[in-house]
């Protein structure tokens, strides 16, 4: 007999010092927060029942995010606002609930993610690097090292990267990019930054913030 469960999609932010928490540790953190919140959580039915939790687009260590998505199931219906408040109250600093909703799209519909990148070059070189970045995106191909199962290979990431905005300020280069994301094809911001480093110069400090997750038609993934 199949029991009735209520699927929930939680969107949360992970910022500040929380960026140093790895994906595996984030899963543990979220599990414990949900348990502390005292919710009617659904556990997988088996020899070793465990909390059903699916992170839709795992975040790399060192990256902040405004739009992390996780799916879970409840054994009975709870008002979304109450859920959001309860979970938020039990998350550690650096994590905050943005919204709770019923999932609309399946995980495989994720196609793009947008990021804000801050690259620090020092010595007032922001302007020069802005030119180099524009040049990179004007190339027909952007060769980049990508880790695959077989090892490392050079791939062209040009079709999977879009430059939305670019501005230099002093030492820094601020940019917004849209990168292919999802299960089958995923371009990490670091891959793009490394491609730039090869073409121009490696930045010093780097800040990465994931801002949006989108579907094929560039609608917010819900």
């Amino acid at each position, binding site marked *: 007999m199949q029991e009735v469960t209520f699927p929930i999609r939680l969107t949360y932010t992970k910022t500040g*010092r*929380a960026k140093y928490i790895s994906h595996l540790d*984030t899963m543990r953190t979220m599990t414990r927060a949900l348990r502390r919140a005292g919710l009617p959580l659904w556990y997988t039915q088996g020899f070793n029942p465990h909390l059903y939790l699916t992170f839709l687009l795992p975040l790399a260590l060192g990256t902040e995010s405004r739009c992390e998505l996780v799916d879970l199931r409840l054994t009975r219906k709870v008002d979304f606002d109450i859920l959001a408040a309860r979970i938020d109250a039990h998350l550690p600093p650096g994590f905050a609930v943005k919204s709770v909703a019923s999932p609309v799209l399946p995980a495989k519909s994720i196609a793009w993610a947008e990021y804000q990148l801050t690259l620090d070059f020092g010595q007032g070189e922001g302007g020069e690097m802005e030119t180099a970045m524009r040049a990179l995106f004007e190339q027909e191909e952007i060769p980049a090292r990508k880790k695959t199962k077989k090892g490392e290979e050079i791939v062209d990431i040009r079709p999977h990267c879009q430059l939305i905005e670019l501005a230099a300020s002093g030492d820094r280069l601020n940019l917004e990019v849209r990168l292919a994301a999802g299960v089958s094809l995923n371009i990490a911001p670091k891959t793009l930054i490394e491609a730039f480093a090869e073409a121009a110069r490696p930045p010093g400090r780097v800040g990465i913030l994931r801002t949006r997750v989108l579907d094929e038609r560039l609608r917010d993934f819900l």
Partner: protein
Amino acid sequence: MIFISAEILAGVGLEDKLALVLEKVEKPSRYIGGELNSVVKEPADVRLRFALCFPDLYEIGMSHLGMKILYSLLNERTGVWCERVFAPAADMEDEMRGQNIPLYGLESLEPVGDFDIIGFSLQYELSYTTLLNMLDLAGLPVKSSERPGLTPLVIAGGPCACNPEPLADFVDAFVLGEGEETTVQLADLVVQAKDAGWSKAELLSKAAKIDGVYIPSLYDVSYREDGRVAAITPKDDAPAVVHKRIVADLDSTFFPDRFVVPFTQIVHDRSILEVQRGCVRGCRFCQAGFIYRPIREKAPETLNRDAQNLSASSGYDEISLTSLSTSDYTGLEDLLGLMLPWTKKEQINISLPSLRLDNCSEGLLRQIAEVRKSGLTFAPEAGTQRLRDVINKNLSEEDILGACRAAFAGGYSAVKLYFMMGLPTETMEDIEGIADLAQKVVDTYYQTPDKPKGKGVQVTLSVSCFVPKPFTPFEFEPMDTANQLQEKQKHLLASIRNRKISVKYHDSGTSVLEAALARGDRRLSAVVEAAWKAGSRLDGWGEHFLIKRWEDAFAQCGLEPAFYANRRREYDEVAPWAHLDFGVSRGFLIAEHKRAFAADTTPSCYERCSACGAAKLWGEGRVSPPCRK
């Protein structure tokens, strides 16, 4: 308590430097604090900053219950802010030294060197060099005499403080016994000292008057020509003997209702309850069994309340019922009766890490199995009945096989058995006895009709090296040399002829060093310092330990590890810890030593009081100590 918010830390100086290194090191979440339930206070409201240090990695130190108790206890006090500090792993240490990042508290990210009290937990001898390394990373001289200022005051406690002499040069004050009350008194005294502008000497002389506080610099130690201690003489009005402290009533004493919940996985990543302190058994090799006396139990109702608090505040899915011997806890079935209904509903597992073979009933096994089947671990400690009597383990072969039979019938197919090698009076026959016993456990499995179907049995032997420790009846005994131990290891391997039995060993080199430090005098401070200067730290980790550095350090100081580790000590020899009292009398230890050699056993405290002397710790006015049932 005020709980951390990310904004508080924005703009902190160290954080900018840390940002540069944290992306380069392994498991950076160990170094940023901000965990749930960590405590952040407003520095302006705080009169005393306390750095609670564990001289090992985050994963180890965060697993330790004593740290959790002291952390919460100190932070309960307004005016005191206690922060956690752990040893950085090698990659982080390199980065810290490279970027000039001093050792910092995880809550404030502020340098430990600016704190008022730096308190270390001493759980094992091999952490001593790490203590020195942490002081150095904090930018402080490692030697107490080279830190003339009032603060930071460097203190240390924990089981190794029962013979803290090898650390006498580095630590200003030791806390003997259970630290809940003493640590708070010391903290109050330091506040008073700061307000009144005392000198460090004034503070130490006043601290020496607190019961349970030992100030090593207030004692002179003289030596005989052969290197043995001649006399330990108190200076000024320091007490001739310092007594350890205990907490008399565990039900009314402080216990945290929340643990700091780490992001990264730690060794014991679960709620921990302490069902009792002390142990009634008196196994003669076991230091904990003597230095934590007398037995004190906590009521099942108190424990159930603690368990509910911890589960609600942590979200942990496991609760461990710890003590030196949890199946001796008389309230165990009542406690499980209280806990099982709600833990089952909330998908929480109960784990019982320290069960004895002779009183682990079938009913109890069934209760545990109801929650989850993991491996079972038992500790026969020795392979023959004769040797088990020598060490007063009070276990028969039938106890061992009977418990295994019950476990197999209950669905278990793997058992782990703990043994020791190098026990006093041990012969090769006793070593063969380990192999024989393991074989009998295998046979028992196949003779059990309701054993798990279609599964083979797995018997794992974990064999450690016996290390004689202070305040045990074996404190007089020589330890086996590394060569003797290696020979016994070889002999055991040769005696095992069944592939269902596997063996794990402990390194004999680290054990001999542990033995030398455990019963060492304060001349070993120079050895510890030399070993640290040569690069020793995190010695408990195989990948960092280098015996050569220690051998050189001993040679450099004109001392021999064998003098401390492998020498028989006479009953009338002045022990380096002779001025410290842990309750159990020396007369009792001598009597127990003699009984060991006659293979005479001593019953548990519950069967008969053996007048060990620890009952006096209850203090006056307690006529009938409850260690007798």
